[in-house]
Every structure is written in structure tokens, then in C-alpha cells.
């Protein structure tokens, strides 16, 4: 009997996977052009986007008439610690930093798809996210891209960027840049087959493992970008020159004063990850912080990616509020959506996600209204064509106390 049930489940789930879903009369922002396609239909077959046209007449297993509601690609947060932190102040729930490894610290194997933060942020509008190590160190480690499906196969791409910072530890930024240069030099010479790491030439206190140097080699080979947290205009210029001299792919995180050096950022094709709501001159490195930063950078031709707040992974989905605020300070709406979707997948080379193109994963959201509005909610969320549950632990708590059971 059990076996029969199991078979039935398998048949049904297999059937569900191969099902077709047709959305009629939607307003679709594909990411392929700056326009919203009004009164268009979108067809999902086998978890992929199969067709987008003004009138799809094919019969499908499920058909929804959306009455003009907006469909976008599911949002991708470019910087979170999702799956790595449950409660910030409880160290035992955190897997986001390492003292053993530096550049080679890959967070990927600690990712917990059952974290309560995942369905919560999914229902806020994120279908995937980059989970990065924290620590604000010279080299914090490697980040990976995950789907927020909650399944054990959430990993999309492993070790897609190296994270670092030059202004975090009280050491002069100049010394930190020298140390990165020396470390890069060591990594260039490092031969994987050699039995020992020759660390002469580095300060005595600095040690790297084989993993660390191999991770840096990937940056030097331009396989992955290095994401550096910096905010001051002059530091951004320094890092632009550094990236040019070292011939690496650089992404800047923070860039509070980016608007002051926007043309240099644009010329060197360096994308920036912004937290548009963070306009406080919170330190002497970000005295020029302002809400117009996103719009000014975009106007200059810089590729922008929008995150929420590095320290607030629990509400990573609020990147869409940040995007809305950036729009109210001059960023075009479609650029704000791009900054939440395809600019992230392009920058970090996450294939077949981030825009609604034929053949892409059907990671998409049907919104009850404008997705950048603070009063909007996702109505239906799909990951690879599979309808996600609207439930969260938070919603269950709400219902317990609303119904007073």
C-alpha cells in the first residue's frame, strides 16, 4: 500500500513538473526591453518560459487571467547572508564567517534551505539570492547563488565571487591594498602541485592556506569577480586603478560616494551593489551619502545592483523598497527592476535567470500591484515553474493570534 502511495506521489509530482501554466492578460516586464508588455500572455512548460506573446491560444493545464496584473522575474538579492544566519546575536545559529580560512572560505556547504528566513524573504519577492560571507575582512571568502525554494537542491552556482574590504580593521587602507597586491603576487606564483606554500615576502602575521590561494587564483584568472566594500570616492578611484593594473573583474559594494566618481566607474565597466536607503553619513568614509546615488550612477552608465542592508539579511527582500525610493529620487522604474533582477544575474554570471526570456527558468512573480510599492505583495511566486507556498512561520503566528485558538 505504501509503495502504491509512493508511486502515486512520484507520478503526481512528475506530472506536476511537466505541467503547463498559462497567464493571460498580464503586464509583463521581461527585462529584455525597457517597456512593460501590456495585455500579454506568458506560457510556462516544464518549468521553463516557453512563450510570451500578445495572444497565446494553446491550452494549458492551468490558466490564470491576470486582468492586467504585473509579472516580473523573481527578484535576486545581490548580497545577503540567507541560509547562513537564523538569529544575529546567537552565534550558534551563524555560519557566515571563518577565522580558519580567508579567501578560500566557501559558505556553500553551510547553507540551510530550511531557515525561516527563506520562505519569509521568498514571500517578500526574492526567488533567489547571493549568500556571501560576512566579516568585512581583507578577504572574507566566497559567496554562492541559491534559489529560495527551500529544497535541498537550492544551490544555483557555487563560489561565484570573492568578497573583501580594504577599510575595516584599523590598518591603513594603503597597507591593506599593499597586502592584497602581495597576496595576489603570491597566488600568481603558487603552484597547486607544490607541497608547501612559500609565504616569504608577506608580513609575518599573514598566513594563507592552499584553498585561500586557489580562490584568489580564480579572481586573477577572471573566472569570478572580487567584490570589495568601499564607500569613499577616493578609495573607489584607487580600486578602479587597482583592478585595471591587476587585470581583475571588480564589483564595488556600498559605493556611497559613487556618484562623485560615476564617470570613472562607467568607463571602467565596474558594477556597483547599492543599498539605496543608506543615506546617512555614518562614517567619515561616506560623508557624501545621498538618496540620489542610484539615479546618478545609472545616468552615468554604471550598472547598478540593489541590495537592502548588509546587516539586515532578515529583511533582504526590502531591496524592493530601496529600489522604490531610488525611483522616487530619479532612477527609471525599469532600471530599478533591472537592478533587482538581470543586473544581478549578469554581473555574477547566473545563467537563465533574472529576465523572462524563452528558455529561462520560470522564476517569476505575479504581483497584486506595482512591485516597488511598499503596499504591494506577491500573489503567486514560481521557482522553475513550481508554485511556491505562501506560508511562513510569521503567517502561522499571525493566524494563531488572530483566530485566538
Amino acid at each position, binding site marked *: 500500500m505504501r509503495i502504491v502511495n509512493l508511486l502515486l506521489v512520484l507520478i503526481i509530482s512528475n506530472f506536476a513538473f511537466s505541467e503547463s501554466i498559462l497567464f493571460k492578460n498580464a503586464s509583463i516586464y521581461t527585462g529584455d526591453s525597457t517597456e512593460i508588455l501590456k495585455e500579454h500572455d506568458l506560457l510556462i512548460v516544464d518549468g521553463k518560459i516557453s512563450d510570451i506573446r500578445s495572444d497565446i491560444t494553446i491550452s494549458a493545464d492551468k490558466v490564470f487571467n491576470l486582468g492586467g496584473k504585473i509579472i516580473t522575474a523573481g527578484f535576486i538579492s545581490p548580497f545577503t547572508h540567507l541560509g547562513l544566519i*537564523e*538569529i*544575529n*546575536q*546567537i552565534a550558534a545559529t551563524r555560519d557566515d564567517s571563518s577565522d580558519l580560512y580567508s579567501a578560500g572560505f566557501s559558505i556553500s556547504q553551510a547553507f540551510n534551505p530550511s531557515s525561516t*528566513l527563506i520562505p519569509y524573504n521568498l514571500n517578500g519577492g526574492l526567488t533567489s539570492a547571493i549568500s556571501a560571507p560576512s566579516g568585512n575582512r581583507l578577504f572574507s571568502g566566497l559567496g554562492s547563488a541559491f534559489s529560495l525554494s527551500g529544497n535541498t537542491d537550492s544551490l544555483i552556482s557555487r563560489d561565484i565571487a570573492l568578497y573583501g574590504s580594504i577599510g575595516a580593521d584599523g590598518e591603513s587602507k594603503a597597507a591593506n591594498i599593499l597586502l592584497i597586491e602581495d597576496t595576489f603576487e603570491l597566488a600568481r606564483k603558487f603552484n597547486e602541485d607544490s607541497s608547501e606554500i612559500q609565504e616569504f615576502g608577506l608580513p609575518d602575521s599573514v598566513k594563507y592556506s592552499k584553498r585561500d590561494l586557489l580562490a584568489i587564483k580564480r579572481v586573477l584568472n577572471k573566472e569570478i569577480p572580487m567584490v570589495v566594500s568601499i564607500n569613499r570616492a577616493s578609495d573607489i578611484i584607487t580600486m578602479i586603478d587597482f583592478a585595471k593594473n591587476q587585470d581583475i573583474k571588480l564589483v564595488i559594494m556600498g559605493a556611497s560616494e559613487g556618484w562623485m566618481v560615476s564617470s570613472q566607474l562607467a568607463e571602467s565597466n565596474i558594477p556597483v551593489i547599492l543599498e539605496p*536607503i*543608506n*543615506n*546617512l*553619513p*555614518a*562614517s*567619515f568614509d561616506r*560623508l*557624501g551619502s545621498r538618496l540620489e546615488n542610484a539615479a546618478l550612477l545609472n545616468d552615468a552608465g554604471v550598472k547598478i545592483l540593489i541590495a537592502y542592508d548588509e546587516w*539586515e539579511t*532578515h*529583511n533582504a527582500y*526590502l531591496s524592493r*523598497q530601496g529600489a*522604490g*525610493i531610488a*525611483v*522616487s529620487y530619479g532612477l527609471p522604474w525599469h532600471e530599478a527592476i533591472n537592478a533587482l533582477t538581470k543586473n544581478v544575474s549578469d554581473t555574477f554570471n547566473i545563467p537563465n535567470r533574472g529576465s523572462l526570456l524563452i528558455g529561462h527558468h520560470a522564476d517569476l512573480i505575479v504581483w497584486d500591484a506595482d512591485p*516597488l*510599492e*511598499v*503596499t*504591494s*505583495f506577491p500573489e503567486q511566486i514560481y521557482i522553475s515553474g513550481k508554485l511556491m507556498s505562501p506560508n511562513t512561520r*510569521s*503567517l502561522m*503566528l*499571525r493566524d494563531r*493570534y*488572530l483566530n485566538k485558538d
Partner: protein
Amino acid sequence: MERYLLYIFFLSFLYSCSSEIFDNTPREPESNDVFASTYQPSPSGDILITGGRVLTGTGEELEDVDILIKDNVIQEISETITPGSDSIVIDAEGKWITPGIIDIHSHMGVYPAPSLRSNSDGNEATSPVTPHVWAEHSFWTQDTQMPLALKGGTTTFHVLPGSANLFGGRGVTLKNVWSKTVQGMKFPGAPYTLKMACGENPKRVYGSGSGPSTRMGNVAGYRVEWIKAKEYRDKPYKTRDLKLDTLQGVLNGEILVQNHCYRGEEMAVMIDVAKEFNYKITTFHHAVEAYKVADMLAENNICAALWADWWGFKHEAFDMVWENVAIVDQAKGGTGCAIVHSDSAIGIQRLNQEAAKAMAAGIRAGFDIPKKRAIQWITKNPAKALGIDDRVGTLEKGKMADLVIWDSDPFSVYSKTELVMIDGIIKYDSSDPSTPKPTDFELGIISPDENRL
């Protein structure tokens, strides 16, 4: 030398005897004149704001009405007011108008930006019992966060000491005006407040030292001090005690308790402590679990000051629901007192959006919460919880002319302030780049001829 010391000892013995003898002499009371407000708005003249759509804060939404301001206060709100010959007329057709926003939980000035060890003055974390410290004595008047909050429509804010201590000290209510002294910002006649804190923070800060190290230690700590305070009030001590002055002020109903408290069962315990010593808790702050005890809060006439969605930074903030504000608001037939607060110099710039999120969540849960009610979470209700609702928080005749003109619906992410007025004086005008007035810190800080803002 020895003899001299002996003489002193004898004198002090006499002195202590005399203090016994004159025990019934009332000690010198706390003076109301010390650190008194010197805030005085310049005369506003007559201002007529025409044609706006007004969320009054009283629970009404009025379309296409005029507002007349005279002598810094609201004189009249009605459908057609004829301007006087000297009136300044502001056309607000198509715009939204709300009362000036009030943030009941701010640390601006005591945790300023830039954030430096030299200016982090919000927690006197040297003892869990510090009701004698006053936030206003830490306050840096040139904090860059205040003009940003002003641009966001915040006209009044309440600055609290931090939450390291069981009794953190006195809070102060300020007008969001540039001044070189804190006295020049103090809301005239606003009552003082006392910051108290439940839960994880005191036990985390003191747990490895003198204690408390548990929640039961916290509660014992409050009760020990309230016993002292009752004695201080009822028995004529000769010498003033700054700590007990503050606690006595609470027992006498002059100082309002603003209690940081997250968990439902802790709020219930704190309500019982308040009953034991016969004082009132005005507001529970942060109260992530207020929805679990919403009826109890309404029955006891206690407000809850809440975030729309912050959670997870510590265990007591794990049970967050988006509907928290709405559930508190709707408790006991809509008699609950819900407040949306910031505790953040980023959040204080857009409390309208935070209220919008909380409203949307409430509507989604099936509550009927119109904008004219939700606006009260950031205007009338915080004014009530700060004891200043007779002067601000609503747009009514006789109230201080603190108001905001928005370019569109303030419950939208796209809405921005066009004009922010405090006591009828324009402090921010989106068309005037010289407003808001930059702080001293911001002058020439970008370059020798370029200010921040």
C-alpha cells in the same frame, strides 16, 4: 593633622545628628527651571494653505480644504477661507497634507552620524540602574541625521537613552529645529520620560559582571528600586537623590514610562510590577510580540510603539508578524493605541512608508484600516504617548502649526515631502536648496565650498 581630622569627624557627627533632628524639613524639590526649554518660534504671520487633501490625524480625511495659520498655530480648517491682505498663500491643490510626523523612539543626537566612539553617548552602561542620567545631557545638536529626518516630515522626536539598563535614564522630547543648544530644541512643557528596558539587553550587558544575568534578575532589579522610590517619596529624606527624583516623578505621574519590551509574557509581568507600585506604563517600545497581548495592552491603556517589519536580530525579536501594528490598533473594538516608531535614523526619514507597510499588512489580514486611521500611528498616537497631544499630532484649531505637504499620497514609496513646517515656519521646502539648514558639521565637509545636503 590627626587632631584636625578628629575635628572634622566631630563636626560631621554633629551634622548627621542635626539631619536626624530636622528630618521633617522637606528637602529641596527638583526645580522645573533647570535645563528649561528656550525654544521660541519666530512669528509666523498669516499663512493660508489652499486646496489640499488633508489627513487631519483626528481620524478624518478632508478633500479640497484650506488651512489658515496665524501666530504659529492653526486657526481654521474649512472649505473656503479668504486670505487676508498680509496672508502668504500656499497652493496645495493635488497635494496631501498631514500633521508633522512624530517619532517616539529616536537616538538622534545621542547616537549621531558620523558614528564615532567620541559621540556615542546613548547608554550609560556602567550600572543597570541609572535613572539619574538624562539623554538631553548627551545630545549633540549638530547631528547630521536631524535635517534628513526633517526632509522626511519628522517635526517632533523623542530621544531616549539606550536599552542597556533596567532604568536607562530620562528621555526628552524635541522639536526638529536647528539650534546651538538642546534647550533651544526642547518641546516647551513636554513631560519628561523614563526609559526602562526588559529582556535580553540588560542581562547581556551585565550578565558576566554585577548582574542581572536573568530575566528574573531584571524584575527583581525593578522592584528593589521602586521600593526605594516609594520610601523616598513618603519619607522626608534630607538630601536629594537624582535617581530617586526621577522614580518619584514616575510615581507622582509626572514622568512617563517608556518601556523597551519585546516579549508578550514580559509585558504582562511589567504591567503587574506597575500595578504593585502603582505607576503607569505609557508605552511598550519595540514590542515585537505586542500582537500576542494586544487585548491586555488595550485594557490597560498602554500604547505599543512598533516597527513594521524588523526582526531576527535577537531571540526576543524572532516572532515578528507584519500585522503587529494592525492587531494592536484593532484590539478591543479598535481602542488599541498603535505607534509606528523608527529607532533608526534611516527609518525616521520615512515613517510614512513604514506605516504604509503596516497598514497594507493589516488590510491583507482582513482589517478595515483606512489611511485616515493609519496616519494616527505616526502623529496622534505618539503625541498622546508623549503627553503632548494637546498641542501636536493633529491638525485642529489651536494646535501648533506642525505640518507636512506631500507631493502625492504619503502611503506610497514614491511620495516625497514638498514642505515641512514647524510652528508655522517653513523648515524644508523642496524648491529651496538652502533648506533644510545644514548642521555645523556639514558646512564645507564635502569640499571647502560644498556642504553636505
